[in-house]
């Protein structure tokens, strides 16, 4: 199956390892991955901060870049939600087959066991837009549960927002930091070595605090755990 990757500007610029993991994972599952070079950003930051006129050209660029593809995979719940849920309010019709990574694996490819190996204790934070906009439900947990060697531990208060919220983290920094502190406490209470999520922006926020506090817990995108194998560990 041919599939186009929308890597997202955050992953492209700051977390290329996530994009590489998606490519590795999808190719292992028999897909041919395209990366349209004219892609940049979905426009979410501008749109969510109120700058609709600035978001519009970015939304149009997305449609031009991905319009001809049957399936577009996005390793970010909030970017996929931006395209599917909010493009219409900009007057832009989103392309048909835009999937968040876990949706694509479970619904389109029909797999939950992707043949991954990751011998670590992991807890999973369901990011708000995956959970409440896309309603991905248990898909990421089903995928993680099928990973060999992985011990999945439940996160207390998992469905509570981590406090990132894009520019919220800068505009309302005190509340954002307080929410993050509670999330960090929840993560530490699990005793997990790795905090996993399907959105690197939330992980940049929680991970930034985990690292600042020298907790020794690392954050990993879902794609990186699913791409990991015995021969080629992440």
């Amino acid at each position: 199956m041919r599939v186009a990757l929308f890597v997202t500007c955050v992953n492209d610029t700051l977390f290329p390892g996530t994009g590489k993991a998606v490519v590795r994972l999808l190719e292992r599952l028999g897909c041919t991955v395209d990366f349209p070079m004219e892609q940049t950003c979905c426009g979410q930051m501008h749109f969510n901060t109120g700058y609709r006129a600035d978001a519009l050209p970015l939304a149009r660029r997305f449609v031009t870049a991905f319009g001809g593809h049957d399936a577009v995979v996005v390793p970010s719940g909030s970017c996929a939600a931006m395209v599917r849920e909010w493009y219409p309010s900009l007057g832009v019709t989103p392309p048909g087959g835009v999937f968040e990574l876990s949706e694509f694996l479970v619904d389109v490819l029909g797999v939950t066991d992707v043949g991954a190996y990751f011998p670590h204790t992991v807890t999973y934070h369901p990011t708000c837009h995956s959970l409440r906009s896309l309603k991905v439900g248990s898909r990421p947990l089903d995928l993680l549960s099928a990973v060999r060697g992985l011990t999945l531990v439940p996160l207390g208060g998992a469905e509570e927002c981590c406090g990132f919220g894009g520019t919220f983290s800068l505009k309302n920094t005190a509340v954002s930091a307080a929410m993050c502190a509670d999330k960090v406490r929840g993560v530490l209470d699990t005793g997990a070595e790795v905090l996993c999520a399907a959105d690197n922006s939330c992980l940049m926020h929680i991970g930034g605090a985990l690292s600042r506090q020298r907790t020794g817990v690392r954050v990993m995108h879902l794609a990186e755990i699913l791409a990991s194998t015995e021969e080629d560990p992440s």
Partner: protein
Amino acid sequence: MSGTFVGMPAFPEASSSAVSDAQLRHNLRKATHTIRAKRAAVVGEQPDWAALREAGAAVKDRTLRHLDVYLERLEAAVVAAGGQVHWAGDAEEANRIVVDLVKATGETEVVKVKSMATQEIDLNAALASAGIRAYETDLAELIVQLGDDWPSHILVPAIHRNRSEIREIFLKHMASWGRPAPADLKDDPRALAEAARLHLRERFLSARVGISGANFAVAETGTLVVLESEGNGRMCLTLPETLISVVGIEKLVPTWADLEVFMQLLPRSSTGERMNPYTSMWTGATEGQTFHLVLLDNGRTSVLSDEVGRQALRCIRCSACLNVCPVYERAGGHSYGSVYPGPIGAILTPQLRGLVGPLEESLPYASTLCGACYEVCPVAINIPEVLLDLRSKVVARGHRGERLAMGAARRVLDSPRWLSLAQRSAGRLRRWTPRRLPGPLSAWSDTRDVPVPPKQSFRDWWAER
């Protein structure tokens, strides 16, 4: 809206002092999580909740579409049942009407049922300046009034207080409002409730004017409906000779069949109960009593004219959105600078007052857009959608620095070539990534490490592959 909150700082400043109040954080966390769990349990057991929610939204939308018709129908029905109807365009007019009505009775004291509309217009202050003392009779409103405080929650106005603080307030202030609290008052809920009961009892028996709001007004019969948990509201609604009800024009439902939907939605969403304990309904005036209905606009028709924002008028003031909001839980109700705090306040206050100042402009940003509020709203108000729409109105009004930064970011992001150049520069300078970021970005690095850019961006890796 009222003058109570005039001069309040914008949300980021107000909430940052609330965040550092450990006692407040503890009180709020405990209280909101308790109600949240109760609500989730009773909503979960209702098999047709999704359909009820849809019906609630549809009834409210239909009512708002034909609001003129239903308002006149309500007026005619109330008048036919012996009540009098007054129309108030804004807070000032509503206060003037109520003050004049109370003055006409010759009374200088009134008892009040818990009401958001009268809080919104700051009626108590208007009455006080006319020499009329208003006594709040809802337990939580009593705590707020005695403590010379502000409500911080729609349903539980004293949610920011714990029982030892309440004991202090009762001991210190009850005496100046009537029967004092017993000197040996303990802080257990029973003793506190008993002290309040005795204090209020003499008020109920002596008051000759009662003032209320209403949760619903049924247009077909002119019936007003108040839901409460203590029975204190019913005392105020039945004992006095004169009853004055101040009701927002969006509180209408056309028929009793429509009301039935909300009688299921509201108790489960607000207090987490299957059925409301005290539901009072009255139609016009009973023999020997006088009833006045003051219908309040105060910005509502301007909200109604906004295609996206008008859904906020569906609100039945249940507070479910406050109780699930992670921002409310940390920031507390006072940070929202209005009697309407939390997610609903963040969309209602800037609409009712207009984007008139820094506080109102900051409220649409008082959310991470996590969507928990929309999920629990019993009338399906898409709060994130309204927040986003309000944000686009805020940025249209200036904010030059941010606009320039956002414009620059857009120019880079709208060009794969420029984006690639920016990525390569960041990659080359990665060893000098600062631990503390400059300017407004320092808000990030104060509590979080800054991600170090990679040597190579994804697109460069792909191109080399």
